[in-house]
């Protein structure tokens, strides 16, 4: 993108913008104002003020058109420093070069003006040609800097929009993939949504209770886990229809085959080959471990206790609750109360006590 300035216009990113073209001259001596006006007349519009207060009023009325301020320090009424102080307090003319034009030899006073972000100090009597060049150079520099700032802001906004679009696309693709798996096993997309919502509710409750592994999770991380949860059965894409949709009880061999949906799911996510995506990282762990149980009697690795991540334990419980409360090809739908009782009774395998506590707290609010 190109940015450049002409005398009164600025060209930024293909858009011709009006550039500020007023020089504000602030000095109590008319002769000093006249001399400065003579230097810039014909090339800039000029405004004159005899003290800081008059300059402040002109600034309020013309702040978007002022290209530079030439400021005396010693004036009756508001001094130059008072004017500067007011500008900075009210964030006025922060992108406009301000020059101190002074015959004050007091170096500490002059140095203090730099604390107000002034562009330069020019001592009286000045060389008119040098003064003009210095002021013009700073005006151009400030314009270019402002042009670059505008350009950077525009690009940052564009990037943020594209990142948001990309994140949205990611989620839609993940949701569509999860829904496809559910449809294939004869279920509806509702199961996918329920798992995500149940996971989020239980995790937030665990965090409130301060349960280890969940107490430091941010809202953003809990959201990522909730999205990852919907991919927990992605490995079922590799399971034969005859097993996946078998109406009756599975044989041992068939169940062994069914169990491989955990490792196949992890392998599938590995095959996507994106290492630093939080959702996919959670999804891999959840896909592999959502059938592990806290007593080590789950699969595929027989992990015990805290060796299973809290999110995989939560998704395991959310999956069990949703499967119990909905009809499957091999079972009818159970009531909320019966499903809760079966989980507490250990009929879906053992879950950690704090997890069951959190589950009981949120169970009345879970969607069926």
């Amino acid at each position: 993108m190109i940015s450049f300035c002409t005398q009164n216009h600025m060209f930024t990113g293909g858009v011709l913008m009006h550039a500020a073209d007023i020089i504000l001259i602030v000095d109590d001596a008319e002769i000093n104002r006249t001399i400065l006006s003579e230097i810039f007349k014909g090339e800039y519009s000029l405004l004159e003020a005899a003290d800081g207060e008059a300059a402040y009023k002109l600034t309020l009325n013309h702040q978007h058109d002022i290209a530079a301020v030439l400021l005396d320090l010693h004036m009756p009424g508001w001094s130059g420093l008072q004017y500067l102080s007011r500008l900075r307090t009210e964030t006025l003319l922060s992108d406009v070069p301000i020059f101190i034009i002074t015959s004050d030899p007091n170096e500490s006073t002059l140095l203090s003006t730099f604390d107000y972000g002034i562009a330069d100090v020019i001592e009286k009597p000045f060389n008119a040609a040098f003064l003009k060049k210095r002021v013009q150079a700073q005006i151009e520099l400030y314009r270019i800097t402002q042009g670059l700032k505008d350009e950077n802001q525009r690009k940052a906004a564009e990037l943020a929009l594209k990142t948001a679009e990309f994140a949205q696309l990611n989620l839609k693709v993940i949701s569509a993939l999860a829904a496809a798996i559910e449809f294939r096993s004869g279920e509806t997309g509702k199961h996918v949504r329920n798992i995500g919502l149940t996971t989020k509710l239980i995790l937030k409750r665990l965090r409130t209770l301060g349960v280890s592994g969940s107490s430091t999770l941010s809202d953003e991380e809990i959201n990522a886990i909730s999205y990852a949860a919907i991919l927990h059965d992605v490995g079922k894409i590799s399971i034969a229809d005859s097993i996946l949709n078998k109406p009756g009880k599975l044989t041992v061999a068939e169940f062994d085959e069914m169990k491989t949906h955990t490792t196949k799911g992890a392998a599938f996510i590995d095959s996507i080959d994106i290492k630093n995506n939080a959702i996919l990282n959670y999804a891999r762990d959840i896909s592999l471990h959502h059938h592990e149980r806290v007593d080590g009697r789950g699969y595929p690795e027989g992990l015990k206790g805290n060796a299973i991540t809290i999110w995989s334990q939560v998704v395991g419980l959310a999956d069990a609750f949703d499967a119990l409360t909905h009809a499957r090809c091999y079972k009818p739908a159970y009531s909320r109360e019966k499903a809760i009782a079966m989980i507490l009774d250990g009929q879906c395998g053992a879950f950690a006590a704090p997890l069951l506590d959190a589950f009981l707290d949120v169970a009345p609010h879970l969607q069926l």
Partner: protein
Amino acid sequence: MTLQELKAVQPLDLTGALERFGGNQALYIKYLKRFPSDPSLSAFSAALKAQDSLALQESAHALKGICGNLGLTELYTAFASIVMLCRCEDTVAALEQGKALLPALTRTMTLLQDLDD
């Protein structure tokens, strides 16, 4: 009296001053002739009479800037010295220098009033 004639009898940075006025000689002469009626001069005289060091410093500071811009180098140097003495709180010396400057100041004012338009 022309500017060149003024320069012959009064220390004058004619080149620098004309540059500051963008080469506009008429405008430069206009402000030279206006200088004797500048309020800072009467403020300076009043401060000397009242022996008011703060008013003396403020008026001398303003006159220093104006004389510098007008190229009145001798007066510029004198007012700069008075400002410095005031800043050093040497009021006695500042008042003395101020009084000593009055004849030269009066002479310059007379010369400026004789300038041709």
